[in-house]
């Protein structure tokens, strides 16, 4: 069972982040990134990775032949991402930028084929999520895709309860270790539609706690 809670523990140890998160999520973190990249990245396309962290998905996308730009607000995470890109000899295919989502206004309109994001939206507050989606829509080419994999808030009370019970011990442990709270994205598909996208795929995990979403920019907003 994947839990984003693990991630917060590991985030505090950037150097061990990748091995740790994969071990604890039973490989799910890597799998979801692989799936997102294999289903959405096209050779020769331009890809933006929002909140790229240690660059796992960005490097995968570069290996799949895309030209990737990744940004993250955390300098220590990006340092690892750069090392990883260099080790994978994809460094010339990837550009990493240290900035928050507000920096997305630097990208030209209609310039990306894919905007992707794994486990980053849940870090953003509501106003930041809306800003990010608005700019994702603007910078995507018509026909371009938005692909997001993130922890979600289960849609029914029963599932929320069940998920909560599973999550409490992990959340408590995370609190104890990192003093960081974790939050799931609530109502993300609705925000994505409101930003002008057409949602193509919306899949939730067993307990409804994980969201895989692919949306399309069908036309520029009137």
């Amino acid at each position: 069972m994947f839990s984003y809670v693990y991630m917060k523990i590991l985030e505090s140890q950037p150097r061990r982040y990748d091995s740790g998160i994969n071990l604890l999520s039973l490989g799910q973190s890597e799998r979801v990134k692989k799936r997102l990249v294999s289903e959405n990245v096209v050779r020769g396309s331009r890809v933006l990775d929002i909140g790229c962290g240690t660059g796992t998905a960005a490097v995968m996308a570069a290996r799949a032949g895309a030209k990737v730009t990744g940004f993250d607000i955390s300098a220590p995470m990006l340092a690892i991402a750069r090392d990883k890109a260099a080790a994978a000899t994809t460094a010339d295919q990837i550009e990493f930028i240290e900035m928050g989502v507000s920096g997305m206004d630097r990208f030209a309109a209609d310039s990306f084929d894919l905007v992707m994001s794994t486990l980053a939206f849940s870090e953003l507050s509501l106003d930041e999520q809306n800003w990010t989606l608005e700019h994702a829509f603007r910078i995507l080419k018509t026909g371009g895709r938005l692909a997001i994999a993130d922890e979600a808030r289960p849609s029914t009370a029963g599932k929320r309860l069940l998920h909560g019970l599973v999550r409490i011990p992990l959340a408590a442990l995370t609190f104890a270790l990192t003093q960081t709270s974790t939050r799931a994205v609530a109502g993300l598909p609705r925000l994505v539609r409101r930003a002008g996208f057409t949602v193509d795929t919306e899949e939730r995990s067993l307990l409804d706690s994980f969201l895989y979403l692919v949306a399309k920019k069908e036309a520029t907003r009137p």
Partner: protein
Amino acid sequence: MKPVAWIIAYLARWFPHRAPTGLFPLGRPDADSPVLVTANFTLTIKRVRKALAGRSVWLLVTNSEGINVWCAAAGGILTENRVIDAIKVSRLSEKVRRHEVILPPLSAPGVDRKAVRRETGFRCRFGPVYARDIPAYLDAGKKKTEAMRRFDFGWRHRLDMFVPMNLPIYLAVAVVLYLAEPALLPGFTALFWTAVAFLYVFMDWIPGRTGWGQAMLSGLVFAIAQAALDWYSLGNPLAHWGRLLAVLIVFFAAGFDLAGILSPRTSDAERLMSNLGFRRFGSLFVEKETGRVALDRPKCHGCMTCSDICPVGVFNGLDEEKKMLFKDQGACFACGACVKQCPEDALSLIG
């Protein structure tokens, strides 16, 4: 905020507590009203709002992941990127004429003001440490008194920290005792809170270099007193050996990071973690340079930024060559604010 939620947030202040981010009008601000920046820790926002009741200002809440200003800034979360995001995402430049924000000075260890200026065009100025001083600061034309620059480690701070900082430790033991040996719970409760109260009240007078050392010394004194009493009345100093052990353990636990929480001294907990080889422990602790601040004299241009933001008053004006003077270099506890903010990179932490 409802009273119950507020009490929970207060008692659980060890833990992050996120509030919504963005730009909030307090009162009826207009294009010329000042913009005050803060973190999205629920308690912080509650206090800032209370302090600014009746004022018309803009409150810009950054995403510090629910952590207070000082911890988030020193822990590398509240950085320039968070301030830049808050300014741009809230479209602040469309709301105010004067492109200036007032930062809490405890954010100085994390926020690079030059980067904020470069990315947003907004100039950053450091206001008073405490929200309660903001009205007086604004009324004085954004001028600070010396007191407004200092973090107050006095009785008010101790009272504020007393219950929230110790309750988690108390509960952790109390729950186990309740399940295993409920008869011991009242005794433990009395001992724990007496020990904590003793340390909080007498900390300034207990000899010792570290907080932990002071606590251990106090525990030893209490244990010896108990043993002496037992010797006198029962003829056996170890008659209540369990109690002696409990006293030592409780003081040992209660004194852990006493210095880091209550006084302008390096945290014992941080030093221990560092010695144990932890580079970082969540947002509680980040390995940073320790030691004392030192000045590279030729580089200093006498801008006095360091003196403006030092929370403990290490600096003391300029000498005849317009270089910073130290008032009390020994008071420095390596928070890193001046090192981060010095525009000439003239300050560093050494030894």
